[in-house]
């Protein structure tokens, strides 16, 4: 396609700065000693160290998966720093004591740390490199019995909950990256919504990788008790380095009877430059368990960053009448590669799932949807609807769809629709003929293409996602 399309893709990354802050790092490389050291630094109970070590031993026996439609140089796991934290000056008593340099970083990123300054009441947990920096609105949430804190804190203050649910959705040995995470995870967010409670505000975690050469391995655990509901948002950025950084997170969601969890992500990790140098390797395992009857888990993701994305937010529909949803927009540009999708595992009766995936490829990128819909033998009356649409910008990018459908119960109803389109010259000419410039035209076409997903994002996120897609594609149409 023409120059305007090209220009639209060449918008520089805005979050690529590095914060100059004293950081404490554990020497690079991975061994049982490093794991013991991390565990000791975090003053962890014995059972958690055992969880880590057994995950590590399992990991040693595993092979790096190679089935995804992505190519990258072999990762040397001994070259990665597994623990980096901003040097604490002292124990933080309040938000005001957060290192000003850190505060400025998050201000630059548009993440408000000051509770009084926060807009529209969103509680935020901020993860900087390996540790949680702060959690806002904690006290207010505690009034209604909601626990929202860093993972490390949860380990100390609510060990019984962590012990009960950690690894219950994504077992330590689930896959190569989940095992690695289970061995070395450093922090993350923990959230517990008690019985019958509707969380009064959106909860949000903001992830930032700062230290060069460090990996980020965070762990998020959300538990929604009977009849409760929560809306959770996650945002991520990283500075611009020439080297690749590994991000291998695990997110586990548990929804009990009649509980409802809505999890939204806007992922904007550094994607590497236009020649594919640098960028984050994003190998993430996200899974939700609809454990109770009538429970519901809904994933919404807008994936725009990372050099490589390997991510399949999934739902295990165990409870009868439970519902799983996956709404995704994945945009790749330059040499980015994304292999993303979902798994909907129907176990209970009358379980329902819905998948809406929109892939946009530009530049020389590769964008794949990979999905599994599995209807178990006991899942009488299960239903799935899947729709996978791809859009190509230019003629050097690639879009793939790999849907797998496995049905073991004859009462199931499965629908799958797929389409591939290009922003046609005729569409562009139509907009031009109505006086509308090419960038506005592309932005309008793309946002129209993604509308079915954006309507599921919370308001601020939807606005951010719309802007982000525009920025990412700036100059790519003409």
């Amino acid at each position, binding site marked *: 396609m*023409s120059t305007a399309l090209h220009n639209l893709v060449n918008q520089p990354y805005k979050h690529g700065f590095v914060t100059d802050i004293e950081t404490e790092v554990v020497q690079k490389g991975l061994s049982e000693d490093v794991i013991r050291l991390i565990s000791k630094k975090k003053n962890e109970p014995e059972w958690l160290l055992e969880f880590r070590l057994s995950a590590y031993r399992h990991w040693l026996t595993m092979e790096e998966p190679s089935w995804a439609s992505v190519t990258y140089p072999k990762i040397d796991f001994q070259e990665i720093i597994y623990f980096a934290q901003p040097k604490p000056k002292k124990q933080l008593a309040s938000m005001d004591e957060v290192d000003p340099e850190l505060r400025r970083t998050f201000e630059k990123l548009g993440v408000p740390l000051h509770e009084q300054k926060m807009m529209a009441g969103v509680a935020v947990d901020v993860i900087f490199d390996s540790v949680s920096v702060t959690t806002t609105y904690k006290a207010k949430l505690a009034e209604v019995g909601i626990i929202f804190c860093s993972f490390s804190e949860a380990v100390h203050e609510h060990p019984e909950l962590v012990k009960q649910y950690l690894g219950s959705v994504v077992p330590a040995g689930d896959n190569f990256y989940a095992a690695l995470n289970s061995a070395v995870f450093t922090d993350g967010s923990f959230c517990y919504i008690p019985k019958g409670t509707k969380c009064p505000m959106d909860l949000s975690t903001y992830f930032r990788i700062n230290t060069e050469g460090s990996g980020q391995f965070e762990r998020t655990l959300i538990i929604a008790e009977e009849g409760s509901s929560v809306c959770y948002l996650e945002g991520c950025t990283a500075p611009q380095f020439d080297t690749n950084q590994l991000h291998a997170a695990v997110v586990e969601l548990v929804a009990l009877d009649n509980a409802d969890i809505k999890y939204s992500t806007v992922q904007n990790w550094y994607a590497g430059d236009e020649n594919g140098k640098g960028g984050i390797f994003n190998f993430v395992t996200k899974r939700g368990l609809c454990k109770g009857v009538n429970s519901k888990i809904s994933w919404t993701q807008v994936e725009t960053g990372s050099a490589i994305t390997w991510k399949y937010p999934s739902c295990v529909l165990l409870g009868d009448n439970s519902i799983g949803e996956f709404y995704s927009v994945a945009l790749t540009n330059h040499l980015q590669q994304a292999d993303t999708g979902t798994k909907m595992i129907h176990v209970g009766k009358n379980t329902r799932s819905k998948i809406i995936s929109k892939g946009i490829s530009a530049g020389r990128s590769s964008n794949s949807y990979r999905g599994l819909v599995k209807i178990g033998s006991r899942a009488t009356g299960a239903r799935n609807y899947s729709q996978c649409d791809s859009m190509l910008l230019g003629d050097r990018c690639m879009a793939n769809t790999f849907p797998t459908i496995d049905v073991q119960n004859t009462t199931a109803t499965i629908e799958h629709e797929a389409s591939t389109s290009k922003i*046609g*010259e*005729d*569409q562009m*000419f*139509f907009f*031009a*003929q*109505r*006086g*509308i*410039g090419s960038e*506005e035209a592309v932005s*309008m*076409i793309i*946002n*129209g*293409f*993604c*509308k*079915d997903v954006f309507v599921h994002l919370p308001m601020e996120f939807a606005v951010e996602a719309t802007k982000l897609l525009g920025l990412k594609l700036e100059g790519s149409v003409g």
Partner: protein
Amino acid sequence: MLEVKNLMAEVGGVKILKGVDLIVRSGEVHAIMGINGSGKSTFSKVLAGHPDYTVTGGTATFEGKDLFALTPEERARTGLFLAFQYPVEIPGVSNSALLRLAYNTLQSERGLEELDPLEFEDLVLEKIKVVEMDANFLSRSVNEGFSGGEKKRNEILQMAVLEPKLAILDETDSGLDIDALRIVANGVNSLLTADNAVVMVTHYQRLLNYIVPDYVHVMDGGRIVRTGGKELALELEARGYDWLRAAA
């Protein structure tokens, strides 16, 4: 308003237009007729600036400007409007969002105030009467799932909102049943003023029963081979095109 002299153009190396001359003044209605492949649709696309077509000779002046020095957007903003023969679908983009963006782009070009969604709704609800469309068309995606007739009416709605100086209707009558044809024609007639002009590109005389032209041009082999009044269209209807082709 528009003056085209000896226009030559090609697509993919094939010469289509071989010296077209045309003058359109304010307040005039022109019809360009001809068989398939005579160059009528090419002519309208070249004037609007479709990127597939290359101008290889001749000149065109529109509103005192060198038309071919302007981008397609600039031509549109100067007041040139093309009603498409095959209107495209834009999934997920609502008709009203598109109309408002196009309208506001023109307003800012003309140094006039842009309208917010509420103000614009008032305007568009008035305009939509011109094409007798239901208001729910505004919230639907542009042309998606529209019938052929609805798509053509939607083009005229855009014309009504944008109020162009010169509207080129490229086979707007094709695929319309008699009721839709009447609605479209009434819409166009209601938009005609002493300050604007319309060029209709069509195969058939029947549209000209509704929108009466001041001039009828017959195109053949990439040239205008005959120009006359509205009675020329009737003659074509009765005798076909062959006698003209032979004469040319």
